[in-house]
């Protein structure tokens, strides 16, 4: 607790440069309990940084289930519709645009089958459904996670390096409506962390 930064802070120091407060723990049990208490204390803008997945931590933090599957479903549905439209359009289209331009599809007769042959359309429909789902799944996952993230305040502090090794860190961001420098630190002290570090923007 010797380098708890609160000691060096003066009461009138500006909170403007402060991005958040980090509490460091040396065990999964510590971070798990801390995440539970932080959620129960009503903080919303907080996150946990851990060197490996901690089972149950997202539940302790109260992380909501993602909306990604619903979005991917509609992306897949779009792929299906695009595939069917594309094939019907290119295979059998025959329209006159204002009687001036004649647009004709590639009306190939394949072994005497009708131009709109549903069985033949299935592979493309399947593949495009998968393609739209997969690409949108990855893309939307990155978007919803706000990735790629080229800069993160937690990486700026040299004291936070051990989160990639053997330490577990809980950060409460200063933009949380309940956040004030004093109350957040007092709350963090109650979590019994190894130390508390303040993070700059």
């Amino acid at each position: 607790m010797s380098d708890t930064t609160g000691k060096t802070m003066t009461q009138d120091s500006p909170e403007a440069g402060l991005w958040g407060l980090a509490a460091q723990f040396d065990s999964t049990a510590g971070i798990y309990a801390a995440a539970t208490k932080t959620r129960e204390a009503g903080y919303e803008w907080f996150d946990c940084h851990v060197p490996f997945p901690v089972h149950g931590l997202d539940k302790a933090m109260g992380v909501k289930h993602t909306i990604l599957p619903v979005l991917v479903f509609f992306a897949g549905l779009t792929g299906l519709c695009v595939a069917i439209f594309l094939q019907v359009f290119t295979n059998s289209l025959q329209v006159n645009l204002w009687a001036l331009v004649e647009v004709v599809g590639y009306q190939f007769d394949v072994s005497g089958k009708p131009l709109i042959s549903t069985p033949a359309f299935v592979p493309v429909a399947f593949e495009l459904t998968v393609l739209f789902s997969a690409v949108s799944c990855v893309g939307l996952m990155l978007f919803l996670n706000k990735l790629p993230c080229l800069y993160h305040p937690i990486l700026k502090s040299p004291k936070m390096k051990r989160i990639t090794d053997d330490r577990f860190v809980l950060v409460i961001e200063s933009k949380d409506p309940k956040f004030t420098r004093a109350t957040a630190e007092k709350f963090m002290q109650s979590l019994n962390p190894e130390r508390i570090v303040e993070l700059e923007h």
Partner: protein
Amino acid sequence: MMTLDSSKDGLRIGSLGTTGMAIGGIIGLGGIAATIGLDGMGGSAIFWKSYLLGFMAAVAICLGALFFVMLQHITKAGWSVTVRRPAEAIAGNLQWLWILFLPILVLVWTGKGAVLFEWCDTSYMHADHVLEGKMGYLNATFWSIRAIVYLAVWALLARFYRSQSLAQDRDGDYRRTLRMQWWAPIGIILYGFTQTFASIDWIMALQPKWFSTMFGVYWFTVSCTGFFASIIILIVLLRALGHGKDAFTREHIHDLGKLLFAFGVVFWAYIGYSQYMLIWYANIPIETEWFAPRQLGNWTFVSWLLILGHFALPFLLLLSRWPKRWPGMLMLIALWMLAMFVVDVYWLIMPMVPEAALATATSWEQLQSGVADGTIDIGWHPSILNLTAVIGSIGLVVCGTFFALGRASIAPTNDPRLAEAMAHELF
């Protein structure tokens, strides 16, 4: 914390085993007896086809279970340790299911096989050049040897996995797990060959001229549908009756729901469609003749029922997370899938190719009108025998399964990966 005690935790089903056995046994024997009785001591073509239908449905469910058990060992799966035991119990039925095959074997051996399998009639086979070429494979001797090999392999594999697993309950020897893992790749290769050729011999050969290289895979998806639907019903039922609530968690049920979705819905449709598309595209009479009756008359309705009820509807129902995590809902879907599984086996076995009509017809419309006025027989003869045979065979499987479940703990208690299975959690 993460252990199971077979004396507590409701892992001994006690009288439920006897009750299940009695109910299954009465339905099973009653169903088989009714099938024979209603036909007047059996012997008609419809009787034998119904009997084959029931036998194949029962075998499919148990084969799916055998595959599941070996799959868990081949992948050294930790999550599935607890649900493996009920699967072992279902697969264990393969130890006696060969008895149900004996009548068919006797039928072929006594020279009356042509009532079920046209290839048993050698004059019919000699009359056609294509069929004559197949006589080296489709003859009573070789066919019987193969059947005995399949049934023996299944019985031995099912016995090995069940007895090793039960022995581990008693002595806790981890080397049993290693032994089961060592045999799993060999077993699964044997399983792959036997179930493929069994489907060829017992279903595809009903129409000896026809062939499809995808048929074995299709049969595999059929048996997976039957098994995953059955085990979901069984486990939800056991939990509802207060057994194994700690052993079979919502996470396991969720995973089994995923497997039903993957194998029974998506993979089934994928293989079924692939088989259809290749034949449809090439449009060669010897291949398309099998699909012709299935697109004529009332079989059209059954085909559409399979596309919509075996694929489209369960696809949408099982796609989301919540129905798979809601045991009651999943059980309803599994019951529906089990019904669809039976319809699928029915659709595979019952239709008959109207060869003479196909050879002479000059248009599809001519076939349709012929089917409509009853001059062309496409095998649409729904009978009470179909139902009694299926219910009877599945009843016997239920009887055997509850017998097996009653004799031991319904989840392994000394498996080295038990703790992993009980801590299993999905995100």
